[in-house]
């Protein structure tokens, strides 16, 4: 009987197959009315494929959960077997789905010797991969539906949408494959597929110089990380002679490393791999590509920032955790764990600072992504440190909280990007409409060039006109901020509390830095997310365009509504002990929601049970809530709040508007001095880091080196190739001239051949 796992391979394969199909059909039918309307220029195919993939993923996941929790007895001993995300089980090999998907197999059994070569794709399922698979497949479908509305109603995309959908599918296939891979090598292959697709999609408007530049930047920046990742993988291969998870995580393999005294090399290898993760997940100092990646269409931003690409880096770190958790390496990998936490902590505050001054709605979200991913990195770093130093329970909690934050952030950020896309799209349409109604002014287009549909200073008061978008945006922002009981609250509290817990544990004092930074970052998140919402949706319309906005594009509201409920529903997941489940440390899902909720609330504050530091942790939590829920948002309200003008908001938004109005009237203060200060300018210039890369690094390091490379490439490599080619062509001409076309000559050559063979053989004999 075929079970879910037999179809699991289809999850990456279906989109990969659909990729050329859409491109191909698109080229053939481009411009035909039915291709544009019924087929949505390939969008219909993409959505159907992603729908099937989601179905397959869900059946795989339910089979897996059933097997793990023992709900489904028939599956418990079946192919889907449970794996802890933090250690390799002995039966982990059974996750490799047998031989049928092993691509090259060559076995010869001869006596006692078995010559066996195989190179295949196996599937590795554990809590982390299952969770991420769901995130990726679910969000990809949502974004696919969103794109039907967003991409196909914009004339600028006409007749090139098939390219978008094809690349979109390949991108998602990269993510699915990466999540399912049972092997660091396959993980890397799919990782690179994603890198390629990010380049293609960010540069979707390749005729726009800024987009082409952004695509190049994203590709090259992540490439820096990838090179390190590859070095790390080679080092790991050198240590283990294998890159399979099951092998490299096994106690035996690690024992061998320890016995050979190679912990240092392993440490270095993991460090190299971590640099790859830093590049992919846009952490300092390889973060520069992420804000520019906004040049792609908004669905691409959602795809990169929520569903796929940035999660890949986190997933890689998740896959490194078993090394930290192994007893034999206890204490050996602390430095890396600390580095992870520090980079996370620093990026969290750094990105939040820059987000303070952004005017572009998508840029705010971009920096928010960086900041939130940094939270997850810090959480993973803390988890790694705790696990590596023997604090298993607390470590697992931190690990679970990080995974949960990954989940919450992906859902909320996907929704936020789509909501921002909705705003931009409608702004754009409204602007178009106004220009159109103004008659046949010749300079209508001229005017259009100056209008920025993404600039929040052009918006304002949209809450009444775009109720669904405004609600989605509000819920998403609350989740990111960590307003109690909503989405991200559960996981963020968990991360902050466990980082503090780690910092307060013996020997963990170096983590106090990240812990403090996270605390500060929480307040900053509260500010910049609220700022974005109030600037966009509250107050009066700042331009006539914003007055004309109507929420009318089809397909766009569907994913927004679904995701709003997803985000709100995270409370149910939380109460089912998701954190414990994700880390496979605290057992299984619980269906007792109420007591679960109380339990989780307590644990969010006090990870790892009650002990001497619990009072400090409680204080920290309260402080976090205060900063993120009170200080940040209220400051933002004071600055940007205000009543709507004509339209009335829906009741569930109205209180927020009214509150902001009250706060604004009472305690509005003038922040012009701040806004014009040199700090603000520095932040606006992204703290000059991009400039540093562009000017100093590029001019003095990259360009000279590039020149050397170019010389080498042109003269030595191309020279050799050309030389060989030229030589081959010459030889080719010569030896073909021996083929005279005369049968007599042929026979003569054959006779010569007979003599040659005869001499050769006779000579040897």
């Amino acid at each position: 009987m075929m079970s879910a796992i037999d179809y699991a391979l289809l999850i990456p394969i279906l989109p990969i197959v659909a990729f050329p199909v859409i491109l191909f059909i698109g080229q053939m039918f481009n411009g035909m009315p039915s291709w544009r309307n019924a087929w949505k220029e390939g969008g219909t195919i993409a959505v159907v494929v992603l729908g099937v993939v989601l179905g397959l993923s869900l059946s795989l996941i339910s089979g897996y959960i059933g097997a793990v929790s023992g709900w489904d007895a028939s599956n418990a001993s079946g192919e889907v077997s449970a794996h802890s995300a933090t250690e390799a089980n002995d039966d982990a090999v059974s996750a490799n789905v047998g031989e049928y998907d092993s691509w090259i197999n060559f076995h010869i059994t001869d006596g006692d010797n078995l010559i066996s070569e195989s190179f295949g794709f196996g599937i590795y399922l554990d809590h982390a991969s299952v969770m991420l698979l769901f995130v990726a497949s679910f969000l990809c479908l949502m974004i696919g539906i969103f794109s039907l509305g967003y991409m196909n109603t914009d004339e600028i995309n006409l007749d090139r949408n098939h390219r978008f959908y094809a690349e979109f599918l390949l991108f998602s296939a990269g993510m699915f494959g990466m999540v399912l891979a049972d092997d660091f090598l396959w993980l890397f292959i799919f990782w690179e597929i994603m890198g390629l697709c990010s380049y293609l999609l960010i540069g979707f408007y390749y005729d726009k110089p800024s987009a082409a530049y952004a695509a190049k930047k994203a590709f090259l920046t992540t490439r820096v990380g990838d090179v390190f990742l590859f070095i790390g993988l080679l080092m790991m291969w050198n240590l283990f002679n294998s890159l399979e998870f099951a092998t490299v995580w096994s106690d035996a393999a690690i024992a061998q490393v320890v016995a050979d005294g190679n912990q240092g090399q392993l440490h270095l290898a993991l460090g190299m791999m971590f640099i790859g993760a830093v590049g992919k997940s846009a952490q300092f100092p390889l973060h520069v590509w992420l804000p520019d990646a906004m040049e792609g269409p908004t669905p691409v931003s959602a795809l990169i920032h929520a569903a796929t690409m940035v999660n890949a880096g986190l997933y890689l770190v998740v896959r490194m955790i078993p090394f930290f958790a192994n007893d034999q390496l206890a204490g050996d990998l602390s430095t890396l764990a600390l580095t992870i936490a520090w980079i996370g902590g620093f990026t969290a505050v750094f990105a939040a600072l820059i987000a303070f001054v952004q005017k572009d709605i998508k840029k705010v979200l971009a920096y928010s992504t960086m900041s939130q991913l940094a939270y997850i990195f810090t959480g993973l770093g803390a988890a790694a440190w705790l696990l590596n130093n023997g604090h298993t329970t607390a470590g697992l909690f931190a690990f679970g909280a990080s995974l949960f934050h990954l989940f919450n952030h992906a859902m909320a950020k996907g929704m936020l990007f789509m909501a921002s896309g909705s705003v931009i799209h409608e702004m754009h349409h409204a602007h178009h409409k106004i220009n159109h109604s103004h008659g046949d002014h010749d300079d209508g287009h001229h005017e259009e060039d100056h209008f920025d549909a993404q600039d929040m200073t052009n918006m304002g008061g949209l809450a009444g006109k775009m109720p669904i978008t405004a609600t989605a945006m509000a819920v998403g922002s609350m989740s990111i901020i960590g307003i109690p009981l909503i989405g991200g609250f559960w996981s963020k509290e968990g991360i902050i509390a466990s980082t503090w817990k780690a910092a307060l544990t013996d020997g963990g004092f170096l983590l106090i830095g990240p812990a403090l930074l996270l605390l500060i970052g929480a307040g900053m998140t509260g500010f910049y997310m609220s700022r974005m919402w109030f600037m966009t949706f509250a107050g009066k319309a700042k331009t006539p365009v914003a007055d004309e906005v109507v929420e009318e594009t089809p397909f766009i509201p569907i994913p927004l509504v679904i995701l709003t409920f997803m985000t709100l529903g995270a409370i149910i997941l939380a109460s089912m002990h998701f954190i414990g489940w994700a880390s496979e440390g605290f057992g299984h899902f619980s269906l007792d929601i109420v007591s679960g909720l109380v339990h989780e609330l307590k644990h969010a504050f006090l990870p790892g049970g009650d002990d001497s530091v619990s009072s400090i942790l409680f204080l920290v939590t309260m402080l976090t809530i205060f900063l993120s829920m009170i200080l940040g948002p209220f400051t933002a309200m004071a600055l940007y709040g205000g009543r709507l003008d004509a339209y009335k908001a829906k009741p569930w938004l109205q209180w927020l508007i009214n509150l902001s109005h009250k706060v604004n009237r009472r305690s509005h203060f003038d922040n012009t001095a701040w806004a014009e200060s040199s700090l603000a300018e520095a932040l606006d210039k992204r703290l000059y880091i991009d400039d540093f890369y562009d000017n100093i690094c590029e001019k003095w390091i990259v360009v000279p080196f590039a020149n050397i490379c170019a010389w080498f490439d042109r003269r030595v490599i191309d020279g050799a190739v050309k030389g060989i080619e030229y030589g081959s062509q010459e030889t080719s001409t010569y030896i073909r001239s021996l083929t005279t076309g005369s049968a007599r000559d042929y026979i003569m050559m054959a006779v010569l051949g007979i003599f040659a063979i005869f001499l050769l053989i006779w000579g040897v004999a």
Partner: protein
Amino acid sequence: MVTEVQLFTEGGQTWEALAPEITLLLGVVMMLIIPNLGDAKWRIPMTQIRLPVLFGGKRFRATSDPQLPAMLAVATLLTALWQAVMSQSGEGQTWYLTSGSGAEANLMLRVDAFSRLMESVFYIALLLISVAMIDRMPAKRGKSLQMKQMINNRRQADFYILLLMSAIGMSIVTMAMDLFMFFVGLEIASLAIFVLVAFQKETPEGAEGGAKYFIVGAISSAVGLYGLSLLYIWNGNLQLLSNSVTGQIGLVEAWGAMDGVGALPLLGLCFVLVGFAFKVSAVPFHFAAPDAYSGASAPIGGLLATVSKAMGFIGLIRVLAMIASPEAESSAVWMMGLGIISLVTMTWGNLAALGSDNPKRMLAYSSVAHAGYMLAGLTAYGAWIGEGNEATTGAGEWILAAILFHLAVLVAFKLGAFLVLALVELDGPITSSKDLAGLAKRDPIIATAMFIFMLSLAGVPPLAGFMSKFLLIGGIVKMSLVDAASGVAMSDLHWTFWLALAVFLNSAISIFYYLRIGVVMFFDAPPNDRRKPLAHAWYIRFTIWACLTGTLLIGLNADFLIEYCQTAAATI
């Protein structure tokens, strides 16, 4: 299960063992008879009573259908294929077929997994060719036909009879346990193929290519036959295996028992080698091949490149790997020679292909290069036997299986490439790569298929061609590590390692000219006389799709075929 059968005296068993061949023979006979059925009557002398004899006279409408031979050939080949496959499904049967009994028994044929595998490959290839030829040499009904069409109609039966005859010859080659039997099979097939090559005799290229191919082929056959006669003088019979009943010593045992290497068997070996080297178009016996490939119609070119070559390799495997296998160091005489031939062949083929502008000649040279790769494999196999089988168990079977695998998958992509050319050829003969220019615009699907065949020929994963090259190189490398028990130092490598390296480097060169076809198809503008979409020709298209499916599926999941090839290799 092994059964010994006395040929033709034990009727039932003979029919069972030789079912595919007998089907083919019946097919030939039917093709001779059925198109000639008519309403002829014979008047009984002295009376007015006319008895219908059904043979001759005005032909019936059904039997005069010019498409009939094609249908008969397809049906015959399908039946034969089905029989060949079925007889090995489940637990494989092995038959030993002897002529006569008791003291006169000679072992003539052996039907086993190997012969059934190769037979199936041959039948599949010929089946594809027959189907493609329905469009390539169309048979049309009607009153007012052009001269060319009437000629085509006339020679339908000739073509398919020749095709089926070559199939019978090839089947005998796969089963022969007696070199004389082998030679007979080879010549049955070869003679049919010589005619097939020259089948387009009204075109100058066809006539010329056919004539050259025949002349050089005839000479190499003669040389090979001379070699066989020397072996016969030496051993007294040409059976491969010894016969316990009659006490005859087979060639295999005789060679093994030899003290040193005698002049007679050595000369014989050399000459036999020459005979087969022509068949596999090894340098310097390949010269006629490009002319033949480009002169013949494309499907026949495909036949030369796939099944005809496979036939030659079966011979080489029998003679070199089976008889003259180097049990003792002194009997490994052919290895160095074959290694050098293989090196020269693959390099020559690739270099010549590099400069060939005519796609058919390019494919011909690429076929020469592929022969070089397989010869390298054969050399390594010989070396493996010579080095003693202990150190690298299984490497030899691996290599042999890789060669068989390569022969089998060639049908998918090399024949596929020729079939694409056959489709393009419908608009006029192909003489240069310009004729393929802009194929992607004229027919994107066919162009993509051609590109995939090219990639597969170049050995790009995940296509079938990659698997075969991977297995071959992997096998040779494995073999060359024979002395390198611990750690790999360069000095420990067996010299066959350099052959593997040569295969690798040659593959790299070959990518250039394979991809050039892709460039021409996708980026160049079609020439003025070839701007219209390709002809519909659904039969050819069907065969192309079949080849494409095979290329992709075998590339993605080759396990079953590899396993079968291993089984077959083990029975050699």
